[in-house]
């Protein structure tokens, strides 16, 4: 047993369960994930372990904060695995980790959109995702105590301030992004309510099984913001994985998705506000992709994929300009 396996075994044993095995899972840049097999009262149980990584991404939650978000989401009836056993210093000093119920399924975007076994699942995906999203958005700063603040000037202005702050930290000028921000500032959205948002609600973060949605994953970018952030991020061009004809995640049409959201108790969806936030989403990803490249340019990392992503910012800038030109979705 290596040191990490021993640490996981010790944490499981401390909770009165019997450790069987663990293996690392490939995943995000902000956490380390493992599959852990164990037994509780003699019954086999599989869990996923999420631990803080050595270095998180800017704007991402720590596992101890994420644990509270997952609990709030589960309590609201969102289809996401329950979390348990938040543990300090599990894999290393200062890093929190917790366990999630294991859910089987496929998350990789292109496979979710193309796998023949998931054809039936794709048909019901917009409906079930919309239901979970409507439930999540019932959680507000008034109803839940979570470890972050609501944006003082409202989600819309906060999003523009945030984009400007990100631009300020980059070398170089990005006139297309500046233009889009100036355009957005002149027509702020009508609905500026603040709710709990997932923050990375898109194909790739949904675990899909042949019988439908298995789980919504990856809560590290959850925050208090506009419900339209989640409603529009799923339609950002890059997250359609080439299926531009299916604007909901590359698998669905807009109208049934918005109708299902409204039917499940979400507020009325204003397509002009979706447009506003979809432009913001494309800008966030444009600027975010430049930041990925900066990690290499600063000498911090040497990953080939990160430098390649940095040159893709023009795709997202184009999409933001295209939406502005059309003035409609």
């Amino acid at each position, binding site marked *: 047993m290596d040191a990490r396996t021993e640490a996981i075994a010790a944490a499981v044993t401390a909770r009165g369960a019997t450790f069987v095995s663990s293996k690392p899972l490939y995943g995000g840049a902000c956490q380390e994930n493992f599959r852990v097999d164990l037994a509780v009262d003699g019954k086999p149980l599989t869990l996923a372990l999420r631990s803080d990584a050595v270095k998180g991404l800017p704007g991402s939650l720590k596992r101890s904060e994420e644990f509270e978000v997952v609990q709030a989401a589960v309590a609201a009836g969102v289809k996401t695995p329950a979390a348990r056993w938040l543990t300090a210093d599990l894999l290393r000093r200062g890093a929190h980790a917790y366990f999630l119920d294991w859910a089987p399924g496929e998350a990789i975007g292109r496979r979710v959109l193309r796998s023949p076994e998931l054809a039936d699942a794709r048909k019901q995906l917009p409906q079930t995702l919309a239901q979970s999203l409507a439930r999540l958005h019932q959680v507000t700063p008034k109803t839940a105590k979570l470890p972050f603040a609501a944006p003082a000037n409202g989600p819309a202005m906060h999003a523009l301030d945030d984009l400007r702050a990100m631009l300020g930290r980059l070398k*170089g*000028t*990005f*006139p*297309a992004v*500046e*233009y889009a921000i*100036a*355009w957005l*500032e*002149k027509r702020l959205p009508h609905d500026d309510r603040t709710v709990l948002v997932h923050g990375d609600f898109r194909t790739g973060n949904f675990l899909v099984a042949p019988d439908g949605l298995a789980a919504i994953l990856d809560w590290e970018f959850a925050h208090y913001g506009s419900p339209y952030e989640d409603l529009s991020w799923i339609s950002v061009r890059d997250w359609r994985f080439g299926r*531009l004809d299916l604007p909901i995640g590359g698998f669905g049409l807009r109208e049934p998705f918005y109708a299902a959201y409204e039917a499940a108790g979400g507020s009325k969806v204003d397509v002009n506000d979706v447009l506003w936030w979809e432009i913001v989403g494309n800008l966030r990803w444009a600027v975010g992709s430049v930041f990925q490249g900066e990690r290499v340019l600063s000498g911090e990392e040497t990953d*080939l*994929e990160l*430098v*390649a992503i940095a*040159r*893709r910012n*023009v*795709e997202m*800038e*184009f999409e933001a*300009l*295209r939406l*502005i*030109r*059309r003035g409609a979705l």
Partner: protein
Amino acid sequence: MQNRPDASTLLDAVAGFLMAEVAPKLEGDKALQFRVMIAANLATVVSGELRTEDDRFAAESARLSGIVGANATLQSPRRDERLAALTAMDAALTARIRANGPDAATFEHLWQTAKETLKVVNPRFDVSENP
């Protein structure tokens, strides 16, 4: 200066070699194969940038001059100085957007520039208005 075969031709040869001879040998290691394909694509992108740079520079700087005024250094014999002039004009455009807000001429320039850039860095990207 030795420039035959030119830089774009050399980069195209590197890309072709990676795609035709290296990538097929890596079926057993899909992750490495994918990265080799990214490397080949980056070589193709740089090749295309070099091949089209003069034309794109001329079009972009002419449009920018019409909006923020010409910059004498655009005519410099040194490439680094010409590119720095373009960067300075972009900074002027940014300041103008912040001061005056969005306007049609600026939009048209940014729209054309994005399309010209995409044609080189990702020729498969659909740049139509209603894809």
